[in-house]
């Protein structure tokens, strides 16, 4: 094998001595620098600005009023009657989407682990929603599925002789949850199915021979095997879901009232609709803190994984 590869090299290369290559040589550092430098700037500069703005009075509509205000922006934000509900909405949205996508994704993945006819094509249909751009998916759901007159559900309800429901007006948060979960269940499904397919079948067969039923096999063999992948899905989805924006922008715009106003939407509306940079930045700092709590766990887990990669 090695000889074969060496043959592929141009003749005459063996005469030149190998350059000294040790860890941390200057060339290696040079190659790494651009990535590190731009990411460092990308992370530090805006974060520092957010932090700075959060302590000053800064409104684009009143540029004359400036100056250090200490924690006033935070105080104002925390006393804003929409702030705590927005945290609540964020948690409900993230929690519900996680529950639907992880439980649903696990069940569908187990189903698709069985060899049925046309499985490959059916699988393509299941993962499709993840590749639909968020603004398109929000409009499909708003106009064609949940619309109180022309939507798919309204049609089904009328067919059954029931009064159609105006989902986005009467159950706005659930509507948003369903459209976001529709995009993220396929993601969970895809990750969990990949993980399932790496499960050793011998273990399952041995359990089957010992007389274990499908439920016991699922609880004692499949689920423990999936636990790592489930943890990864939960953490990655949490990070993306914390910044859910396009779906709300396109479907409910935070309403009706403030019923679908999440932390992200609140920061957007304070900062880019009311142009109060100071208060919006205080909200941004809170969002970063929340995200960091999640990411500490994820980074820890990946760190263990990475150790394995280098030890290989």
């Amino acid at each position, binding site marked *: 094998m090695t000889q074969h590869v060496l043959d592929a090299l141009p003749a005459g290369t063996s005469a030149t001595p190998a350059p000294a290559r040790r860890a941390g040589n200057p060339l290696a550092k040079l190659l790494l620098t*651009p*990535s590190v430098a731009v990411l460092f700037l*990308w992370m530090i500069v805006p974060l520092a600005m957010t932090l700075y703005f959060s302590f000053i009075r800064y409104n684009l509509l009143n540029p004359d009023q400036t100056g250090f205000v200490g924690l006033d922006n935070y105080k104002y934000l925390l006393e804003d009657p929409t702030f705590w509900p927005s945290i609540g909405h964020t948690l409900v949205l993230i929690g519900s989407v996680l529950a639907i996508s992880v439980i649903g994704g696990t069940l569908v993945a187990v189903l698709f682990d069985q060899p049925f006819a046309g499985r490959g094509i059916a699988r393509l249909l299941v993962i499709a929603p993840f590749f639909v751009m968020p*603004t398109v998916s929000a409009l499909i759901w708003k106009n064609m599925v949940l619309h109180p007159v022309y939507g798919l559900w309204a049609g089904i309800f009328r067919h059954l002789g029931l009064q159609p429901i105006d989902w986005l007006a009467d159950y706005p948060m659930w509507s948003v949850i369903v459209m976001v979960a529709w995009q993220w269940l396929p993601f969970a499904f895809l990750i969990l199915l990949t993980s399932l397919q790496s499960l050793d079948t011998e273990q399952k067969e041995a359990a089957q021979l010992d007389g274990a039923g499908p439920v016991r096999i699922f609880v004692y063999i499949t689920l423990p095997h999936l636990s790592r992948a489930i943890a990864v899905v939960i953490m990655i989805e949490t990070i993306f879901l914390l910044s859910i924006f396009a779906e709300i922008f396109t479907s409910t715009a935070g309403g009706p009232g403030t019923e679908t106003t999440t932390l992200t939407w609140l920061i957007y509306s304070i900062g880019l609709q009311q142009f109060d940079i100071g208060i919006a930045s205080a909200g941004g700092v809170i969002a970063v803190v929340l995200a960091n709590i999640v990411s500490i766990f994820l980074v820890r887990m990946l760190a263990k994984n990475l150790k394995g990669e280098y030890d290989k």
Partner: protein
Amino acid sequence: MNDPMKAPIWVGVLGWAVALVIFMPIFIIAITAFKTEQDAYTLSLFFTPTLQSFHEVFERSHYLAFVTNSVIVSFGSTFLSLAIAIPAAYSLAFFPGPRAQKTLLWMLSTKMMPAVGVLIPIYLLAKSAGLLDSVTGLLIIYTLINLPIAVWMAFTYFNEVPKEILEAARIDGASAWQEMLHLLLPTSLPGLASTALLLVILSWNEAFWSLNLSSSNAAPLTVFIASYSNPEGLFWAKLSAASLLAVAPILCLGWIAQKQLVRGMTFGAVK
């Protein structure tokens, strides 16, 4: 005894039922795109297909301009990310310094910063630099948000190149360039190609920054489609035609890239 390779028939029926229910919304826009505006409001499957909506999408809006923006921004940012990421991944995989692990994890942690946490300063910086509603602005942002994924994916692919082969080549005196050109590139090219594919998909569908930083000039398809959300823009057939054109190519790429997506989105934790 049943064939162990075949699942019972009800499993197949259930699997297909689940697949069709999940796919239903996409199916609805796919058929509505070929209806007239009048037919679009009925859910009937029986209609005469027409390309009228597609014609109108092209005639009444600068649809091609939005497509162009999407293409420039997603392919351009993918190219830039890879150009910066590949050397870094090469360095981290083959010349890991004492801080290599920490560097990788730190890069990853930048990806975990919620976009909304830096929305305000990025908006103000873009505004003062004249990069608001500019393709260049979006290109820069997309390059930066995809860079950590690019480094990680390229790193995991480089890491799979058997070290023995490289060592053998080095002992044999291959220079760094020869090593890259004749050993590394051929073995990791499929991996790098799928990295590129994933980056294109992610930036094509990115909607947080595009909605906040672009309006008319630089708007990619995500922003153009969002403009259909106002009440006076309720033209379902046209909305469906425009959406179908925006979604279909990337859906095909996604289907091709599903395995790589798992790896890229989980930073190699699930393969």
